[in-house]
């Protein structure tokens, strides 16, 4: 079997869909985020495409290794990994389809296919995406409304993302406690609630806040520091009892090795797209296994990102925590699902992975044409 074409198609709802076709008529799809699609599309179609066309899509590691060295000046990491990841996902989709197996089985089997997911909701994203929303999206009242949407959709595990990023360090720690407290009171003790600082604290702020947040019942404490501060992370991890997590911004296996050895977070959060697809994500899971670190993948995108991340997650025997889920990045559930023949959607806080061959998401040609934004 040979890859015959590689297309990258930005879709209105957020993904940059990558479609591979083969000489045997089997098609596979992967995705990247479309935010920078104007740079990514030519890189995927022309640079990576010229490498992988003619290769056997089932040779997933071989293809990954063929893409990585010649394009390394554009990485390592960043756009290079994200684009390679989209192709990698599409190759795995084809490989599993050609063996008539669901992706989890092709990858060595699911420990479970009924998987809990948590509702991940943030402040800044929607404001950025829509060019501003009415009022302040970060008030406790506004955040409670975001939690209510998830609760009504049946979720019982939640995460509040503050999205400070490192350029807004230590801006409103007191306010963050009030935000968490309001959401926790609304959800009650029967729901898990975690908090994500999104790189927004310095070390001492992170420790002071963390001591209070763990008393308030935070389930996990995510990215308290700028992602590059491994030594600082170790100080925070050592100071707190609750699990401290990091990893969504790391790109390579070697970054994860150093993050674990130096920063020693309690839980690792690789992102399928950021690390370059299924092939490296599995390796990172193995590294985490060697160091007895639970994985809790970053993967809020409601389409291929989430479904494929769940497939890989399902194969990990100790992966029992709820996996991230959100449709905020896709402009709602309807937008996130309308280009697929059959969507993979959570029900009562669980996603059931389908038995269909491949990852289970098949793009409808007409819908792709209708919602592509590069025409």
């Amino acid at each position, binding site marked *: 079997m040979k890859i015959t074409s590689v297309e990258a198609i930005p879709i209105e709802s957020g993904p940059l869909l990558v479609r591979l076709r083969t000489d045997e008529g089997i098609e596979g799809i992967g995705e990247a985020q479309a935010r920078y699609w104007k740079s990514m599309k030519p890189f995927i179609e022309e640079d990576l495409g010229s490498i992988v066309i003619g290769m*056997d899509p089932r040779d997933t590691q*071989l293809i990954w*290794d063929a893409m990585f060295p010649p394009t390394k000046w554009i990485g390592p990491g960043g756009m290079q990994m994200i684009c390679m990841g989209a192709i990698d996902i599409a190759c795995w989709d084809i490989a599993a389809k050609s*063996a008539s197996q669901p992706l989890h089985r092709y*990858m060595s*089997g699911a420990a479970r296919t009924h998987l809990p997911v948590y509702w991940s909701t943030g402040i800044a994203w929607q404001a950025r995406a829509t060019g501003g929303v009415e009022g302040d999206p970060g008030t406790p009242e506004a955040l409670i409304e975001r939690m209510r949407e998830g609760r009504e959709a049946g979720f019982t595990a939640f995460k509040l993302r503050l999205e400070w990023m490192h350029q807004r360090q230590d801006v409103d720690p007191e306010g963050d406690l009030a935000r968490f407290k309001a959401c926790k009171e609304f959800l009650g003790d029967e729901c898990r609630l975690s908090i994500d600082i999104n790189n927004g604290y310095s070390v001492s702020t992170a420790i002071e806040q963390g001591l209070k947040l763990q008393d308030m019942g935070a389930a996990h404490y995510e990215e308290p520091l700028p992602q590059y501060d491994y030594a600082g992370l170790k100080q925070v991890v050592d100071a707190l009892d609750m699990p401290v997590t990091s990893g969504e911004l790391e790109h390579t296996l070697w970054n994860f090795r150093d993050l674990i050895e130096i920063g020693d977070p309690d839980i690792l959060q690789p992102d399928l797209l950021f690390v370059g697809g299924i092939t490296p994500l599995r*390796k990172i899971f193995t590294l985490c296994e060697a160091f007895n670190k639970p994985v809790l993948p970053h993967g809020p995108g409601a389409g291929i990102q989430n479904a494929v991340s769940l497939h890989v997650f399902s194969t990990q*025997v100790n992966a029992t925590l709820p996996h991230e889920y959100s449709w905020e990045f896709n402009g709602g559930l309807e937008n996130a699902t309308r280009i697929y023949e059959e969507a993979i959607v959570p029900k009562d806080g669980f996603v059931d992975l389908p038995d269909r061959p491949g990852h289970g998401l098949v793009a409808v040609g007409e819908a792709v044409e209708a919602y592509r934004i590069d025409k």
Partner: protein
Amino acid sequence: MKITSVTATPIRFSSDNVSSSSVPLIVRVQTDEGIEGVGECSGRYWQSLKPFIEDIAGPLIIGMDPRDTQTVWDAVWTETKSLGPGGLQSTGMGAIDVALWDIAGKAANLPLYTLLGGAVRTHIPVYWSSGLGWQRTPDEMLDRVKEGWDLGYRAFKIRMDWYNNRLDSDPAKDMRLFDACRNFLPDDAALSFDANNGYTVSTAIQQGRYMEGQGLTHFEEPLPQYDYLGLKQVVEALSVPVSSGENERSLYNFRDMITIGDPDIVQPDIAMAGGITGLRKVYTLCEAYNKPMMPHCPSAGISSAASLNLYATYQHAVRPHEYSYEFSGSLDAVAGLFQESIIPENGFIDLPDRPGHGLVLDEDAFKRAEAAF
């Protein structure tokens, strides 16, 4: 697809076995779709391994889908952990795991290396591995090396097989063995030396220093395998690559060996480390730490084929892979056990593009080998 039966059968390839303790144990896994997979481990303790595989692991996995290799592995590992971790447990699991991957490859109609991500190369150099140095004179060891040379091999390893119960017994004689082989081989033929856990730290450094001056390719297991701290001293003292790992069982052992002992080359064994599922994870750890792998695998049969199928998928796996028939029987006898064989020629093995690991038992030959045992 479901697993319907699991059997473990000790065999002899032929009556000319070089060692009575070297008996392959062949594991056969059957499915409801008629696809069979075969795996192998050393049958030295077959009286314990056979019931573990057939009566303990078997009932746990019958009814499971053999393509769910990780799921099956986890099920057996968890349930039988009081028999391990490691030891008989991971060896028995490794043989079963190889059989399952064989089935998965056959079911997808793909060679195993494709299922494992694709072969970087299928023409793979192997080195000639000769052991029992502790009992042999320099001339006897040289004869073994010459046999390999005449068969076309151009990379060699001599094994002392001292083990940690005969520590530092006769280091000077080891160097006479090494010199005899080194003087026979041209400079461009690789010669490695395996102390098989037989030295203390200072002896290892002295021996290593001498051999690296004469032309040594790698220095294997200088110390008892548990001495990670000592290994680090040897690694730091020598410029020649120091290797270890064949006696490690789990991913966690390898983590500690790498982060504490820091060997230059890591040598997991497919049967000891829990089959392809276990071995593959060790490879990933080696990749994270930028450690080349040179798998331990002196076998000539199924374990060798399976180990090579995985080795073939690694970009930086350019060193020759171990090969020996000392633990089976003659090459002809090994080849005869299978419908189509995988045997080195001129120091290279060509992996076939047949589905699975590529070795299918010849039923008549298997019956004879079973009877010979």
